[in-house]
């Protein structure tokens, strides 16, 4: 995972709500290994069905969408497709919960902005903009600067590139103690043989 600090790059607006992960990567590509180049599958069908799809003939490091981006299927392939295509950050008024979790695990920054502010930003795109993750500021193309909220743990993972599993296994003793307690508290919870 590439640690994330400050990013200046081209941003593109996707002026639609409820972009589901089936749009981001159609199901038929999920059988492919990551080495197949998931960037080739990003918005695969939309890019062909809509000649004026904003990503056609353009590269972007930042996508700015409307609400509920990444809703639907839990496929992490949606995040692989974005990341492999060079997208480092998606900005939207809200995200599908599973998508946002997957994004965090792959170094893809998701930033929640209030809907009117996200709409104002989309109106300035395509253009270059800057994201300052440590300072939690967005520098819009029009020169205005806006702060954003960020889960402190997720922020640390993105900046330092932490290995989640390694972090968890550092708590092995607490996990073992939980299991010991739990066997007495919920003896029925284990599956019958």
């Amino acid at each position: 995972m590439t640690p994330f600090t400050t990013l200046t790059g081209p941003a593109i607006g996707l002026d639609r709500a409820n972009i589901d992960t089936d749009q981001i990567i159609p199901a038929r590509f999920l059988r492919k290994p990551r080495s197949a180049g998931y960037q080739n599958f990003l918005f695969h069908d939309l890019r062909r069905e809509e000649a004026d799809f904003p990503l056609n003939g353009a590269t972007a490091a930042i996508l700015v969408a409307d609400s509920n981006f990444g809703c639907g299927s839990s496929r992490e392939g949606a995040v692989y497709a974005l990341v492999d295509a060079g997208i480092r950050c998606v900005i939207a008024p809200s995200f599908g919960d599973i998508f946002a979790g997957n994004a965090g695990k792959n170094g893809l920054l998701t930033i929640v902005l209030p809907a009117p502010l996200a709409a104002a930003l989309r109106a300035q795109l395509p253009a270059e903009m800057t994201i300052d993750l440590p300072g939690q500021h967005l520098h819009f193309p029009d020169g205005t600067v806006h702060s954003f909220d960020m889960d402190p743990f997720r922020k640390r993972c993105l900046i330092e590139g932490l290995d989640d599993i390694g972090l968890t296994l550092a708590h092995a003793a607490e996990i073992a103690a939980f299991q010991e307690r739990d066997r007495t508290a919920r003896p029925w919870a284990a599956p019958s043989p």
Partner: protein
Amino acid sequence: MSEPRTLFDKVWDAHAILTREDGTTLLWIDRHFVHEGSFHGFGMLDHAGRPLARPDLTTAVADHYVPSRDRDQPIRDPEVANMMQMLRTNATRHGIDLLDLDDPRQGIVHVVGPEQGLTLPGLTMVCGDSHTSTHGAFGALAFGIGASEVSHVLATQTLWQRRPKTLRITVDGTLSPHVAGKDVILAIIGRIGAGGAVGHVIEYAGSAIRGLEMEGRLTVCNMSIEAGARAGMIAPDDTTFAWVEGRARAPKGDAFAAAVAAWRRLPSDEGARFDREVTLNAADIAPTVTWGTSPETALPVTALVPDPAAEPDAARRTRIREQLDYIGLEPGRPLEGTPIDRVFIGSCTNARLPDLRAAAAVLRGRRAVVPGLVVAGSVPVKLAAEAEGLDRVFRDAGLRWGEPGCSMCVGMNGDLVAPGERCAATSNRNFQGRQGPGSRTHLMSPAMAAAAAVRGAITDVRNLA
């Protein structure tokens, strides 16, 4: 006296191993299901050289990619055959119970879990599939995860989670005849929107929910994700316990009695606080269908196709127009009577025995005027349906009776809706291209899909005498 707690609070609290300063909690996971698509998660585990923490709490099921026909022959598509083989290899290597293509328990993971007694009240359950919310019908906290989280659960049997907010949706009253769990959840999503429950766990409550049999509750919880919810839950009751008792992997004898005693303490306490509340009147819910490319476009079958010109908000107006363009409907026309090309009855939403019975009740003695596919959710459902002669009803009506799996819901196993075709489907997603590139999907209940098959058009099942 301690603070009154919700069902969700009780399950969450019982699984919290530790909570960090930033509020993130390490949760113990009681059950983990993997399927063919989980190969990315196994790959990450292998890449890190880590062993599986608890193979005994992990179950592997072949469902997403399995063909619904010619099951006795080798799979023709080499990529799909390879997916099956990877699941087999990973399950065998790590000592995971595998429900392979030829297993008498095989089926869609969200049908199999409850059926085998792996799904129980009060558990935490995860799977690399967003419809894992289904299992919440038993009062479990069950949610979908991505591949990285799959590898994390495989390696640690735990997950880091931020505590979600709670939303109680109360549906009181009596459902009208021919109104099913599917209509209830479509009406709910129509009300709160596809992002209406983002960041929340829903508890479905009220007399109409309590009045549903387990299969109807499973349908409701299944589509929680279509409202953006992290999970959906229903308080366990005698209906739940009776359904669980005697299942293969459920507690037996004294252990079952002890479990029931514990499960009776799970329902939300009197006065427990929810972050949000929504109420619906059961009597207001009609047979419901979707008109667009998001499940939130659910309307009573008696409604008209929305007119973008009547929508004052510019963004919403555009969104309606885009969806109508794709789905090929004219504004202002009645939804009922819209011609369809195909029906699909199946999926983790609506492929259990009562679903098939409801469809068969409409089709008995009738012919479908369009092609269609009926796929039971599991081998046990298929055998039970055949024992009742339901397969004959479907075949006599001219529909194909497929082998259990995700089939035409997911567009990845060979069962596809052709470009431009309109499908009446009992599945859960009407997304653009979901059932195949260019496919147009209208979501509805099994009885409504059967009615659509008979008329070759979207039909109010109540008018099909």
